[in-house]
């Protein structure tokens, strides 16, 4: 190609050289940039082929989805025996909640998405009306799940279990610990010595003690510390402990966010005559929370997975239900299938939280919109 000459100031924008952009460019730069890289790519593709072949076979093609026992499974095919799940799926989801009343859990769970939608997606249409529902939802959910009002049969909390228990503990813990964490983070930064000292003590104590210890305290000792006559159910006590525990972590994450805000932001707010609460609401928190999103969601995911620890105080979370299933002589030895299923449930929930946090970070990124 012959080099053309242009007058100064008239050089046009030329397209990039061929093979550097587009699909072809990407493949060349990322997969086949050198001889060793090309070899690695080919070996990886071959390995992936055999691995995926085996995985799909075990999971789906050779798997048995319905049978009466493990032995019956093995007679049909030699892949996974998902019958242990399909035969007991009700217990995995609802625990020992009475079968005739399970619709109450279904409704509570489905309406939860309606209640969360306006909080998670600020641009949703009719947000104001949905927010009224969000405020009303906790009472609605409580009455529907526990019963005892409006002719609904009262259900003992000891019958709760499975994924339903995980979601109740996780969602209550998450929803309560965020505001408490924010207050603790502000308290720790406060100029009032008493508030600051109390916040520091609370945070350091909660972070310094293993969660299992707190759960044992909740199950056996909390009633000694409460005024006589009060008697919370074990479920409420466990939720309080989860809330306190993760609030302490969230407080520290948010404190990091607050400290990352440049001093000039406060000076500008001061110069405009804003008082402490106006500064906190409009300047500090929006910026600090945005910075802290990855850390907050990290803590939430940790809390959600830690709900499985309630098995040590006798509540039947999905792992507890799984162990009960494995103890059944019919299903003895199917721990791989059982634990994979439980793991899949946790993965889906946690992955959803993680994707939401990425979406939110992107949405709040005002630098390069």
């Amino acid at each position: 190609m012959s080099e053309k000459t242009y007058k100064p100031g008239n050089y046009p924008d030329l397209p990039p050289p061929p093979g550097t952009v587009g699909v072809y460019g990407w493949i060349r730069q990322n997969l086949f940039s050198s001889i060793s890289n090309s070899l690695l790519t080919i070996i990886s593709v071959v390995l992936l082929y055999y691995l995926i072949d085996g995985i799909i076979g075990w999971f789906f093609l050779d798997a048995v989805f319905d049978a009466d026992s493990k032995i019956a499974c093995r007679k049909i095919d030699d892949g996974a025996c998902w019958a242990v799940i399909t035969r007991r799926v009700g217990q995995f989801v609802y625990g020992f909640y009475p079968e005739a009343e399970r619709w109450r859990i279904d409704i509570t769970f489905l309406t939860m998405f309606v209640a969360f939608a306006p909080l998670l997606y600020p641009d949703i249409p009719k947000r104001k009306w949905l927010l009224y529902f969000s405020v009303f939802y906790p009472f609605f959910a409580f009455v529907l799940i526990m019963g005892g009002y409006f002719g609904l049969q009262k259900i003992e909390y000891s019958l709760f279990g499975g994924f339903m228990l995980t979601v109740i503990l996780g969602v209550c813990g998450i929803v309560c610990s965020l505001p408490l964490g924010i207050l603790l983070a502000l308290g720790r930064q406060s100029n009032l010595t008493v508030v600051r000292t109390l916040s520091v003590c609370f945070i350091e104590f909660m972070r310094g003690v293993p969660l299992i210890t707190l759960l044992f305290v909740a199950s056996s000792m909390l009633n000694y510390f409460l005024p006589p006559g009060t008697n919370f159910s074990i479920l409420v006590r466990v939720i309080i402990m989860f809330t306190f525990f993760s609030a302490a972590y969230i407080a520290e994450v948010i404190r990091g966010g607050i400290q990352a805000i440049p001093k000039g932001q406060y000076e500008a707010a001061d110069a405009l005559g804003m008082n402490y609460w106006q500064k906190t609401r409009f300047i500090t928190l929006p910026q600090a929370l945005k910075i802290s999103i990855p850390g907050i969601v990290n803590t939430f995911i940790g809390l959600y997975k830690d709900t499985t620890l309630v098995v040590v105080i006798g509540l039947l979370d999905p792992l507890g239900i799984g162990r009960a299933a494995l103890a059944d002589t019919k299903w003895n030895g199917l721990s791989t299938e059982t634990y994979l299923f439980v793991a899949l449930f946790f993965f889906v929930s946690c992955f959803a939280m993680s994707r939401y946090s990425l979406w939110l970070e992107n949405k709040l990124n005002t630098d390069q919109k």
Partner: protein
Amino acid sequence: MVTNKNKSSTPVIQIKEMHKWFANFHVLKNISLGVNQGERIVICGPSGSGKSTLIRCINRLEVHQQGDIIVNNVELTGDLKNLEAIRSDVGMVFQSFNLFPHLTVLENCTLAPIWVKKLPKKDSEELAMELLTRVKIPEQALKYPGQLSGGQQQRVAIARSLCMQPKIMLFDEPTSALDPEMIKEVLDTMIELAETGMTMLVVTHEMGFAKKVADSVIFMDEGEIIEQNDPKNFFNNPKNDRTKLFLSQILNH
């Protein structure tokens, strides 16, 4: 130099024998200064001379330890009521703009009028648009600060301060963080503001601006006011040796 028709003899800022320390370091020494309504004062001096600290004391971003500062007949003390009254009367523009990055340009301008002055949202938006037009960027109202150039951001910061309808404007090196080609647009905005009769205290090294609009130029060094004079005498016949040295350093390069 233009003569200032708006200057009156009503004092709006009176500083009497004011001292300030940063821990043991004596940053401001025996400062006395009176500013009348409509007066434009430029403060210059080498870095570390205390000029920024001085104007930051006027809206109590810095706390002085001795002497009096009286703004609009209200004395600056620890009293929060007084402080809020003074701060909504005194606007401030910073070297690093300090716009709120999570709010749009318009929201930056309306936040304080709505919540501090309790102005209805619609009125404060109208006022904000009017002032954004005055600083010549109404079309950027819905963008975020991060999408604007430095000069545009500083003009937004000026509009944001003006939205509180202050009686006094403080400028803390407003052009020091800007590229040369953007300095002019900010200075032009400030010159227009001066023509409306605003009382202004400007810390700057832009001596052209001082010659053009200042009623009085102050030279500070090591925490003291060394010399104060009208621009003509200040630049042509500086009396103090340190002023002469400073002027020779910044004017002949």
